[in-house]
Each structure stands twice: as structure tokens, then as C-alpha cells.
């Protein structure tokens, strides 16, 4: 029975196979033989209905087309186009033509005539629009060819009168992108009359369709972007568009006005209904300010943003933006800001507001009050009070930019910025704090303002508090009470949020060093010293006390009289803190002490240059490696590496370079060592065990090269070549070792093939750099490439082995700026003895707070790894929003890691560390065809490998079994 069954199965199986073979055979014939264009032709001829044809075209569009066959494909498409009756198919063909003409390496001038031809006979508006788009693609591909551009512009002008808005849109777009830049050139081109592109586009500012109006303005902006100088006459046209019914028109018009105002800031324009004249930039500023109270928030955002970049505006116009004349029952009233200022200047303490405190004063002349000023009045007041936070943020940003360029404006806008600290949206608060920090050079805070600023220190959001600390670092405070107030509030903050410790200390450091004279009178009070009595010695571990000391010591640095006020224990504490928190406590000249530290500091400065020299010398020494015997080479490398490492430790600014070159030398050292192994001289089977060292070396070199490539910022292409070269050598080594240690040829075949592929890859991507690699491993390898391709694995291995030994050491050119990526995990601190308890199977959130330095694109590369005691490892991808960027080259990761595990009996430690994920194929440029197509490239997100780059932190956790 079984045999019978088997037979039947076998029979059926054979049948199936036969059929499949036939099918495959026919398919293969079709797939390989004809070119792409032919296949397309067949497909299109087969199509019975327009829907079919459309399907074929869609399928066709998914695959890229090589530059050589583009022209053929285009011909086929055009041929079909003439025959096709269905507009949707024609539309698709038109769009394909556009895509095809973008193909790199293909010159589209040959298809332009056809495209223009079919344009003339086309009836469908949609297809027309698409064809114009195609022409635009062609035109942008051939920016040098003036004649073609002229022709296209002509075509566009012809179709401008089309009834469909889509066609007119595209025509305007075409004009904007291709309209001739230089008048002189257009006049030279005979036959075609020089067209005034601006005039033509300008005519369409009054088109009946808002979409066309928008397109016209956009085209004008495009002209500007391409370097064509817009005429000033456009200004008046654009101003009219500000009262358009449609928001996209208004939004674009605001942009245009801004552009013109930047082009002709000093021109004079008349004020309507009066004889006066003002500068154009002022007029434009007023108009844009007016748009800040537009009905559409999109326009408001646009207007508020642009205000920030109008720096040439006159100061009295600028200051008007913050002015809003208040009145109540027709009597002039002072703003709360004015009242606060007055209270302050009169020396009174804020008594709180009484009813009628804001009672209006003088009568207002009814005729003089202007309710909707044409000018800039109160634009920012409105913008900052806007309903949408997008507008408010834009207004704050604009305020920031204007204040940076005008100190007097900075002083004026301070009150408003301080007000924004109480916004309901955190982003706005944060933004205004950052803004304040940026303009802090221009301002000095009044006490009442400082008071409001400091009130925000109690905010529960860590970002806000830290931003505020940063702000306080660079604020100027006017009085000693101010300093005292700041200190008191910061200490309050410290008790409420102890995690802010470091940030607060840092803040006080700067506060002290900025205001030594203001701190001086406060010292006795702060240290609670008494002229006659000794007071109790404060607790040295109290963060608050340390905070006070940090303030005082930093102030004392530039204030030599201060140490006289210190009591004995203060000096002791100074010595302690100087050692334990040396980054916060500066070196002081204390009476009766040796100035050890201050004596050292100048010498460090003078050493800088020699250390650079030293680095150069040690690296140059290595060039001679070639001529040394292996033993000598090893020794030379070893002590150079040692020198470099030491140098890196001593000189933080050279650490990146030193580390980078040391790593490279270490790779070389490993390679040399591996090649020195005895195993090479003996028959393979005997040295199975000893080859460990060589294969480990190969592995390590690979790792190190990945580190070199991805862990350093500022690595340039010439370094990448060398690194890849080193990696190739490591791979060759690996291949040789495997060949020696494994029996049988099968795995070797695969490895050889793979290796040769790698070589090929290397050659293709670094083709430009190959001349620099004279005499190197690759250089020799490529010479022998044809031979290698045909040889057997064993032979290949032999060749590789000799080449590895003969290849020259490549000198690594140093990049200008190089920094090693590093990360420090601040939280969890890993010191806690109390395990984090949670029910097993459920999830516990662990807060992770880390600073990252010199990491490029941390959102994609930085991962968190959790290692459980059972060896299980888990990789967590933090959200992009978890990364903050507090300064250039610095990032901060604040995220939550979710842990979960089955029950343990004892509390155990898990390790948390940060990884740098890399993917070497991400550097490969993408094919342009794919971008336009429907294919979504998901390649970037894949991870090839990871490098740990922070010290692991141990967290004590205890998953308990669930109680039943």
C-alpha cells in the first residue's frame, strides 16, 4: 500500500515538474531576451482596454529603467500615446515621460520636440497639465540650453489662456522655473522676442481662480530664488493681494512682500491718503504686521515668522509692535508693564493691586485714537496672545531674531517674553525661555522681572527648569537682592526637585562668576558667619550648602577681597570641593596657600602647540614601518599606540584624533601579529587550535574598523576608504584562516565568492580614491582580479596570503575635526541598594537619562540595550522625541525603558547601556527613479550592527511572582 502510494505521489510529482519546466522555460525566454522597451511594447499592444494599459504602465513604473534604454522606452510610449484615446492612459504616459526624463545620464532634449508636438494636439486639460509638468522636468534637466528654455517659455505663454486652472498653474510654474534670468542673453537669442516674464506672471495676479493667483505668486518667488531681480512695481500688486479672499493667496502674498522689501529696503513709497512718504521696508513691515491679525492662522504664522527677518526696519516702527495704547472709557490707561516699571523705579515694593489701581488717567482725544492702525502697532502683542500656539511660537521666534539685532528692542520686549513664561503650552514656554537666553547679552533683568522668571523654577517639567537654569547662567542681574532672590529660588528648586542638582550647581557657577561684586556683600549672610561668634560648621554633603559655596567660590575668583570673609572651615571645604567637583570650583588665590593650581594652568596653555607637534611626530614615525623587520614594527606600533593613548588622556581637545589614529594603528598591529603566527608555515591540520589568535585578530579588526567608521564625527571620505581597506584585509585574513582550519571545499566556495564580491563593491564605490591606494593590498588585488575570478578557492587563498604579507601599510590622513562619540548615563545611577520591585510578567518603566556627545543623527542610531542576568538581551529604540539638543554636538536622551521578566527568587542586577547602531549600506546613494515611484525605501532603518559606547549601568531589579 505504502509503496503504491509512494509511486502515485512520485508519478504526480513528475508530471508537475514537467509542466513547470515548460513554463519556466518560456518565461525565461521572454524575460531575458527582449529589452525593456520591447517588453513594454508587447504589453501595451496586448492591452485590450484602457484599464489594462493603465495597469501595465503602473507595473512598468515600479521598476527602474537604465539610462541606455530610456530613449527606446520613450519612443514606445510616444507611439502609444498617439494611438490612445483614453485620457487617463495618456496622463500616465505623460507622467512617465516626465519621470523618465529625470533619469540620470539621459539627456532629454531629444524628446522635447515630441512632447511639444503632442501638447499642441492635446484636448484634455489634465493631460495638458501633466505634459507641461513633463516639459518642466525636461527644462530643469537642461539648465544650460538657452534656446530650449526660450522655447518652453513660449509654449507656456501660449497655454496661459487655457480655461483650466490646472494648466494655467503649470504654465506659471514653468515660467517661474525656466523664465530667463538675464535680459541680455534673451536678446541675443534671435527669432524669439524677449519676453518680460515678470510682466506676464504679474498679469496673473488678478486671475479669477485663487489657485492660479497663488501659482503666479509662487512663480514670482521662484524667479527670485533663481536670482532674478524682481521689479519694484510688483510691490503694489502684491499689496493688493493681501486682502484677497483666499488664505493661500494671502499667505503667498505676504512672502512676496517680504522678498520685495528685502530687495528694495530703502526705496520710498507714498502713504495713501496723505502726502507723507516712508521707506519701503517700513511700509512692508507695517503691512505684514497687519497680517498678524489675519483671519486665517496659516497666514498669521507666515506673517509672524517673516517679521523676524526684517532687520532693516526703523527702530520706531519696530518698537510700535509692542505698543498697544490702552484706554478705558476713553481715558488713557497704563499697561500693567508700565505700572510694574513705575513701582520698581519709585522704590516701593509691590503692594498688590488695589481696585482702581489701574484707574484710567487722562482723557483721550477721541479724534486721535486710531483703532486699526495701518502701521505696526501692537502686532506682537496680538501675535503673542493668539489663539493658536503655532502663531505664538512664530511670534516668539520673530521677537528673538529682532531682539538679537536691536538691543533697545530687546530691552522693550523683555516684559512680553517674561509673560510668555506662563503660556499654557509647554512648547511656547520653552521657546520663550530659549529666546530669552539668546538675547540675554542685550538685557539686564529688573527685580520684578526676575521674580516672574524665577517663579517658573517650580515648574514640574524638567525641560523647562533646565532651560531656565541655562537662562540664568547667562543673565545679567542688576542688584544684590536679585542675586539673593535667584539663590533662594534655586535652593527651593533644589529641595523640591533634587535631581536638578548638577544643573543648579552649574547655573550658580556662572551666576557667581558673572556677578562677583553683587555676591560680595552677600557673603557673610550666605555663609552665616558672625563677626564675633563662631558658627556651627555646615554639613559638607548638603547639596544646598555646596550650591552656596559654588556661587561664592566662583565669585571669589575675580574678587580678591572675598576670601578674607571666609571662615576656617570654608577654606577646608574649598580644598575638598576643588578636588571633588573640580569642574565647578575654580582655582583661587587664597592667602597663605601655595598657588599650586594656578601655577599649573599657564603651562598647560603653552603646551598646546607641542602636543600637536608630538602627535604629528609620533604618527610620522610610523611611516617608517615599512622598512622595519616585523619585530621592530610591532614594538614601534605598540609604543606609539601607548603614546597616543596617553596624549588623548592628557589633552582633551586632541583626544578624538589621538584615539582615532591609535585605533587604526592597533588594527595594523593586530594584522601584523596575526601574520606573524607560525601557523602559516606549517601544514594546516596541525594548527587548528593556534589559529584562534589569528581569527580573533580578524574579528577584532573588523570591530575596530566599524568603530572607526561610525563612532567618530567628522570622518571624511578619504578616511572611510582607508577604514574599508583595513576591513577588507581583515576579511581576507578571515578567509585564509577559515581555509586553513576547515576541511572540505564547499563552505570555502561561498566565502571566496563573497569576498570577491566585496572587492568588487569596494572598487565600485571608491573608484575615485583608488589612485591614492598605490601599492596597497587592494591595488595588488585588483591587478590580479581576472586571475582570481577564475581560480579555485585554494589558489585564491594562497594568492591572498602572499599579498597580505607584501602589501604596504597605508598612511591614514587625519581629518580636520574629529570627535569620538561618547555617552554617559546619568540616570539610573546604579548605586541603589533597593531593588526595583514589580510583578513578574508585567512591565516596569525605568527612567533613563543620558548625555550624548558628538553623535550624528542620534534619533536613528542610538539604542538602549538591557542585558538580563540570564544573558537575554533586549534592544530598545527610543522615540525621536526623547532626544533633546541642548547645544551643538550635544544631545540629551531622556526616555523610559520598559523592563519585564519572569519571576526571580533574588533581586538581581540588569545592565543598561547605550548602543550605536550602524548600517554601512545607508551611505550608498539611492536611485533617483525609485524616489518618484511608489516603492518606499525601508532600507535605512535596518541595522547592520551595534557598537556599545557608554559604560554599562547596573540596575537592581526584583520581579516578584504575582500573588494569587
Amino acid at each position, binding site marked *: 500500500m505504502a509503496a503504491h502510494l509512494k509511486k502515485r505521489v512520485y508519478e504526480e510529482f513528475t508530471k508537475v515538474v514537467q509542466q513547470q519546466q515548460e513554463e519556466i522555460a518560456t518565461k525565461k525566454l521572454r524575460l531575458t531576451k527582449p529589452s525593456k522597451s520591447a517588453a513594454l511594447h508587447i504589453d501595451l499592444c496586448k492591452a485590450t482596454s484602457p484599464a489594462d494599459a493603465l495597469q501595465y504602465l503602473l507595473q512598468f513604473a515600479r521598476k527602474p529603467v537604465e539610462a541606455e534604454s530610456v530613449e527606446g522606452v520613450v519612443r514606445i510610449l510616444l507611439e502609444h500615446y498617439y494611438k490612445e484615446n483614453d485620457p487617463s492612459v495618456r496622463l500616465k504616459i505623460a507622467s512617465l515621460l516626465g519621470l523618465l526624463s529625470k533619469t540620470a545620464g539621459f539627456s532629454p532634449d531629444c524628446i522635447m520636440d515630441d512632447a511639444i508636438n503632442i501638447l499642441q494636439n492635446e484636448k484634455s486639460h489634465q493631460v495638458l497639465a501633466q505634459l507641461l509638468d513633463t516639459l518642466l522636468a525636461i527644462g530643469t534637466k537642461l539648465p544650460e540650453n538657452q534656446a530650449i528654455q526660450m522655447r518652453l517659455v513660449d509654449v507656456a505663454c501660449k497655454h496661459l489662456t487655457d480655461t483650466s486652472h490646472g494648466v494655467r498653474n503649470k504654465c506659471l510654474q514653468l515660467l517661474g522655473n525656466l523664465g530667463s534670468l538675464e535680459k541680455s542673453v534673451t536678446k541675443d537669442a534671435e527669432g524669439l522676442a524677449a519676453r518680460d516674464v515678470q510682466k506676464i506672471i504679474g498679469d496673473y495676479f488678478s486671475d479669477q481662480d485663487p489657485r492660479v493667483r497663488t501659482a503666479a505668486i509662487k512663480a514670482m518667488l521662484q524667479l527670485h530664488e533663481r536670482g532674478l531681480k524682481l521689479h519694484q512695481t510688483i510691490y503694489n500688486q502684491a499689496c493688493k493681494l493681501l486682502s484677497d479672499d483666499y488664505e493661500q493667496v494671502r499667505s503667498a502674498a505676504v512672502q512676496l512682500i517680504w522678498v520685495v522689501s528685502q530687495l528694495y529696503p530703502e526705496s520710498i513709497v507714498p502713504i495713501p491718503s496723505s502726502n507723507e512718504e516712508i521707506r519701503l521696508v517700513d511700509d512692508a513691515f507695517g503691512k505684514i504686521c497687519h497680517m498678524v491679525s489675519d483671519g486665517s492662522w496659516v497666514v498669521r504664522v507666515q506673517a509672524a515668522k517673516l517679521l523676524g527677518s526684517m532687520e532693516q526696519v526703523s527702530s520706531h516702527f519696530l518698537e510700535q509692535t509692542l505698543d498697544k495704547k490702552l484706554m478705558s472709557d476713553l481715558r488713557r490707561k497704563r499697561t*500693567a508693564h508700565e505700572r510694574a516699571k513705575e513701582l520698581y523705579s519709585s522704590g516701593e515694593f509691590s503692594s498688590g493691586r488695589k481696585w482702581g489701581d489701574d484707574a484710567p488717567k487722562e482723557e483721550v482725544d477721541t479724534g486721535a485714537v*486710531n483703532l*486699526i492702525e495701518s502701521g505696526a502697532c501692537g502686532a506682537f502683542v496680538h501675535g503673542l496672545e493668539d489663539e493658536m500656539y503655532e502663531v505664538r511660537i512664530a511670534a516668539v521666534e520673530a521677537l528673538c531674531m529682532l531682539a538679537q539685532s536691536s538691543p533697545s528692542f530687546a530691552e522693550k520686549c523683555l516684559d512680553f517674553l517674561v509673560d510668555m513664561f506662563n503660556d*499654557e503650552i509647554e512648547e511656547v514656554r520653552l521657546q520663550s525661555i530659549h529666546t530669552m537666553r539668546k538675547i540675554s547679552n542685550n538685557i539686564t533683568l529688573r527685580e520684578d522681572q526676575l521674580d516672574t522668571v524665577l517663579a517658573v523654577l517650580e515648574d*514640574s517639567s524638567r525641560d523647562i527648569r533646565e532651560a531656565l537654569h541655562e537662562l540664568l547662567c547667562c543673565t545679567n542681574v542688576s542688584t544684590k537682592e536679585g542675586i539673593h532672590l535667584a539663590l533662594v529660588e534655586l535652593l527651593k528648586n533644589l529641595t523640591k526637585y533634587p535631581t536638578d542638582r548638577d544643573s543648579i550647581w552649574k547655573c550658580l557657577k556662572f551666576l557667581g562668576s558673572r556677578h562677583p561684586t553683587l555676591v560680595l556683600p552677600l557673603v557673610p549672610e550666605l555663609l552665616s558667619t558672625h563677626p564675633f561668634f563662631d558658627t556651627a560648621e555646615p554639613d559638607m554633603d548638603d547639596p544646598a550648602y555646596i550650591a552656596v559655596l559654588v556661587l561664592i567660590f566662583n565669585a571669589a575668583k575675580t574678587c580678591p577681597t572675598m576670601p578674607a570673609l571666609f571662615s576656617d572651615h570654608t577654606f577646608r571645604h574649598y580644598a575638598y570641593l576643588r578636588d571633588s567637583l573640580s569642574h565647578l570650583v575654580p582655582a583661587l588665590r587664597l592667602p597663605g596657600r601655595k598657588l599650586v593650581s594656578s601655577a599649573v594652568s599657564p603651562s598647560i596653555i603653552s603646551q598646546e602647540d607641542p602636543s600637536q607637534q608630538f602627535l604629528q611626530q609620533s604618527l610620522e614615525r610610523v611611516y617608517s614601518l615599512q622598512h622595519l623587520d616585523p619585530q621592530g614594527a610591532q614594538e614601534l606600533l605598540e609604543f606609539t599606540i601607548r603614546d597616543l593613548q596617553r596624549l588623548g588622556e592628557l589633552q582633551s581637545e586632541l583626544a578624538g584624533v589621538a584615539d582615532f589614529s591609535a585605533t587604526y594603528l592597533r588594527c595594523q598591529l593586530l594584522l601584523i601579529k596575526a601574520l606573524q603566527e607560525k601557523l602559516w608555515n606549517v601544514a594546516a591540520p596541525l594548527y587548528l587550535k593556534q589559529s584562534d589568535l589569528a581569527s580573533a585578530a580578524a574579528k577584532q579588526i573588523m570591530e575596530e574598523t566599524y568603530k572607526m567608521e561610525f563612532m567618530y564625527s567628522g570622518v571624511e571620505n578619504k578616511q572611510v576608504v582607508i577604514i574599508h581597506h583595513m576591513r577588507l584585509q581583515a576579511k581576507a585574513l578571515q578567509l585564509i584562516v577559515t581555509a586553513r582550519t576547515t576541511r572540505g571545499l564547499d563552505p570555502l566556495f561561498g566565502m571566496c565568492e563573497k569576498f570577491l564580491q566585496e572587492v568588487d563593491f569596494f572598487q565600485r564605490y571608491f573608484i575615485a580614491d583608488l589612485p591614492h591606494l598605490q601599492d596597497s593590498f587592494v591595488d595588488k588585488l585588483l591587478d590580479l582580479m581576472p586571475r582570481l575570478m577564475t581560480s579555485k578557492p585554494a589558489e585564491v587563498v594562497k594568492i591572498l596570503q602572499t599579498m597580505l604579507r607584501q602589501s604596504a601599510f597605508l598612511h591614514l590622513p587625519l581629518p580636520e575635526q574629529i570627535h569620538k562619540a561618547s555617552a554617559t548615563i546619568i540616570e539610573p545611577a546604579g548605586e541603589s541598594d533597593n531593588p526595583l520591585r514589580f510583578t513578574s510578567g508585567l512591565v516596569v518603566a525605568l527612567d533613563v537619562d543620558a548625555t550624548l556627545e558628538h553623535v550624528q543623527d542620534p534619533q536613528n542610531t542610538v539604542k538602549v540595550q538591557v542585558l538580563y542576568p540570564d544573558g537575554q538581551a533586549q534592544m530598545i529604540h527610543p522615540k525621536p522625541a526623547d532626544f533633546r539638543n541642548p547645544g551643538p554636538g550635544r544631545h540629551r536622551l531622556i526616555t523610559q525603558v520598559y523592563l519585564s521578566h519572569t519571576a526571580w527568587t533574588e533581586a538581581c542586577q540588569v545592565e543598561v547601556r547605550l548602543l550605536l547602531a550602524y548600517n554601512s549600506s545607508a551611505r550608498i546613494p539611492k536611485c533617483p527613479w525609485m524616489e518618484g515611484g511608489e516603492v518606499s525605501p525601508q532600507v535605512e532603518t535596518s541595522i547592520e550592527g551595534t557598537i556599545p559606547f557608554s559604560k554599562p549601568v547596573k540596575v537592581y531589579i526584583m520581579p516578584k511572582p504575582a500573588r494569587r
Partner: protein
Amino acid sequence: AALLRVQPQPRLGAGQDVGRSCILVSIAGKNVMLDCGMHMGFNDDRRFPDFSYITQNGRLTDFLDCVIISHFHLDHCGALPYFSEMVGYDGPIYMTHPTQAICPILLEDYRKIAVDKKGEANFFTSQMIKDCMKKVVAVHLHQTVQVDDELEIKAYYAGHVLGAAMFQIKVGSESVVYTGDYNMTPDRHLGAAWIDKCRPNLLITESTYATTIRDSKRCRERDFLKKVHETVERGGKVLIPVFALGRAQELCILLETFWERMNLKVPIYFSTGLTEKANHYYKLFIPWTNQKIRKTFVQRNMFEFKHIKAFDRAFADNPGPMVVFATPGMLHAGQSLQIFRKWAGNEKNMVIMPGYCVQGTVGHKILSGQRKLEMEGRQVLEVKMQVEYMSFSAHADAKGIMQLVGQAEPESVLLVHGEAKKMEFLKQKIEQELRVSCYMPANGETVTLPTSPSIPVGISLGLLKREMAQGLLPEAKKPRLLHGTLIMKDSNFRLVSSEQALKELGLAEHQLRFTCRVHLHDTRKEQEMALRVYSHLKSVLKDHCVQHLPDGSVTVESILIQAAAPSEDPGTKVLLVSWTYQDEELGSFLTSLLKKGLPQAPS
């Protein structure tokens, strides 16, 4: 021209007076009543509008097409049950969903005070409120509601209080916008009023703060928070007397978010009752609130207060700091007064009055600085606690009103709900700066506006496209000449091409031809003559199609020219020129050209 009549209701209308609204609008034959408010100050008949004035005799339902209520404040909706149930109105009443939800609560509360406490007779009953609410049709924002075939209304967001709306009333091409009360600056729980460029014939706007330009809201908020925070930190108690709806919610949100931000633990209480019910509705109508609440409500509904708890009478004696919101807002009675009495003696405590207080109330007294208050039973209460005043008003100020007028671009503006003197100022400003005519009728006064209604005419697409194609450049604002036939049929107008008009009307086309004879002195033969005419015309009319037909005649487009020789005089030749009516221009040009004679041929 059609007329638009607006009439604030006598005695209790919204004319030059604050705090009562009832306006009658007649637009293109439709009568709409805007708001139906009452006056808090009177306890007799004067409290409600005099509805008999509307239709001297006859039913209100027959006269009014609809009633629109802008928001739930009693001065805008208080007379509604009286109007619909006691006077008798069965037509539709339009209001927004939140107004529909909250309005009956307030009416019921008002009824209770009037009937149960003051013992008034002849007042509407609970059942009447319910019956009245059954006649309500709720509308959504920006939803166009067809009241009947011609009348349509549309609601716009107005800020002010939850569910407050501005209404556009439209009949044909005529429209009126009624703003109700509105707020142009956003606050902690509501957004700002917004309207599109609807270009109504008339904008009826409130003008409570016609002569005020207000300071930034932020300063006031910051001050308020700082005061509360400082007092609480000192260990003092803060009393905030409020009215149940509107500002109370704003202040709650303000304090709640501040507590959240600053991580404060001090308890906040809210006196229960009406407020709790109202808060419930605030929770439901999130789309009507401001951006922040709408955006964050997925994580947490801002009206589900974490720090604000219900107040109990006993809590007032608890030691330690606390913040209490208590009703009513002017400290004249109820819980707020009770708490005030308990806390007034301690200088650590504070009372914050968030709004205006009527003369005679305790609130007014303490605000004007009185430190010793005489209470009932000759007790003297010494006020040691701090007294603060914070104005949180939700009406648009003069700038806001101007801004809204600018946004809507009306033909004329009508000011209501404000004091005459202040309105005068604003009226002048509107006329000066916006160049829009402005009215401010007194109560009972009728304003009549002539409108120039536009008459829509349908045009066939083919004709439109054909005519459009003739002009080369687009000129949106300029009128353009168009050839067509206007057909008026069943009160609608259509513009069609003449061919189609003929077809539709079943008429035969008549051709009108002009003929003209031109006498020329020429002795040559007709054929030769025709040839000369042909070559002459060909050289003059370069862009026209000139043909020489085999039968000897010449055509220019459709104009026919024939040469004939009259028998009597061989020296003269006659040119017959004939053209159709359509080619009149070219035809007359040709004749005048030919009359000048042909150029002498080179012989």
C-alpha cells in the same frame, strides 16, 4: 430695492443699553427674532420684553419665522419660556448644542430663586421650561440650516462662553450677521471668535467695551496666579467668589494647570450644586473649547479636575491653606458670604473678586476700601484679609470689534448692547477707519436699510467658455461684454446663446441684412472691377479672409460685394455691399472704405 429692517425691542431691547438682548430683524420678507433676554434688575413685568409690540394682534408663530439664541446667559435667553409658553410661540428656536444643554439648568435655577425664594406668582414653571426646550433645534458650527425654502442660518464660533455663537441669517443674496456676545482674544478654556469674509449687508455687533482697549491677558493671569500662590505659601486661605458658569471654569482651568505645573498640593474646592452640573457639560463639549484643551483631551479631559474637589460646608474651618471658589460672585448672599465672614478676620487670608460688583453688595463695599462692614443684626465685621480685584471679562474690546468688522467686511454695521455714549465713539471710528456706514438705534427704534439685491442669472457653460476664450488676459474685476439672450421664465433668469434661445422658444431665425450701393466712376468691365476691389481689400484687410468667387463676387468673411453695371451710365459702376446684422461693424467699415474709391491702378 429690498429693505432690511432691524428693530431692538422696546423697553427691554438691546438698543443703547447693556445686558438685555432682543432684536427683531426683517429681511426680504422674513422675520427673525435674535435672542430673547430678560432683565435681572426688575421684578415685575418689565423684566421681559413686551412681545405684544411685535404683532399688535395676531399670533407670534405666524409672524416670526424663527428665533435664534446666541448663548446661554440669561440676558440673552431668560425670557424664552415666557415667550414660547406663556405668550405663545410654536415656531423653531435655534441654538447651539451646548447652549441647548446648559440653558435649561440656568432657567430652572432662575425660576427657583424667583418663585421659591421670592414667592412670585405668574412665573413660568418647570414644565414650561421643558416644553420650551422641546421647540429648540440645535445647530452645529458652520452648519447651514434651512429654516424654510429661502431662509437659512449658519453659526460661527464666538468664544465668550461655552457654546456662544454668532449667526449669519441669509435670504437669497441678502444677509445679516448677529454676533451675540463674543471675545476676540482666547482665554484658558475658549478660543477666539472667528468669521469668514461673508460680506453681509449688515453686521449687528455688541459693543459693551466700545471705548476700551484692553491690556494683555497674560499679565492679569500671572498676577492672579502669583497672588494665589503667595497667599497659599504663607499658609493663608483664598476665597474666590464666582458665578457658576463661564469665568468660574476659566479660573478653575487656570488654577488647575498652575497646580499641575508647580506641583502644588494645597487643596482647591469648588462649591457644589449648579457648578457640578455645568462642569459636566463642559466635559462633553470639548470641540467648543480652545486649542490646548482640544489637543490634550485624548490624554486627559481638562475639565476632569485633579486638584479641584467639591466643597463641603465643614471644610471652611479646616486649618491650613486652601483655595475655594464659591457662589455667588458679588458676595451678596449664599455660600461665598458665609465663607467670607469666617475668613475675613485673618490678615493671612485673601479674597479675589474676579469681576464687576454692583453697588450695595458686600463685594462692592470691600473693593472700594471699606474695612468695617455692618452685617445683619448690627454686627460689625472687621475685614483684615487682603482684598484683590482681577478683571476677567470675555467681551471684545474696541480693537476686537474693529477686527471682527474687518474680517466680515459688511456693508454696514449696527451697534447694540452698549452704552449710547460709548457707542457714539465707536460708530465714529467705524465710519472713519473702515468707511462703513454705522447705526446705533435706541430701544424700539427701527433702522431700515435699503439693499441692492443681486439677481442671479444662470449661464450655460458652453456660452461662458466661448465668451471667455475671446478675451486673452484674465481680468477678474473688470466687467466684460457678452453676447447672449436673456430668457426670463418662471421667475428665474437664464443667459443662453441666441441659437439655443431660438430653439427653446421655437422661433425661426430671421436674418437682417443691410445692403448698400456704392457708386464708383470706372469704365472698366465688371469682372475687372471685381478683381480690383478684391486686390484692394486684400491689401487693406490683412487679417480677414477675403475671397474672390468664380461668379465674380468678392466676399470678406460673410460680407458679399458684387459689381454691377447700371445700364443708364456706362461710366459708373455700382458696387453692391451686403452684410448681416452681426457684421455691422465690419460692413460699415467696408462701405466707407469703398466710398473713398479704389486706388488708381498702375496702368
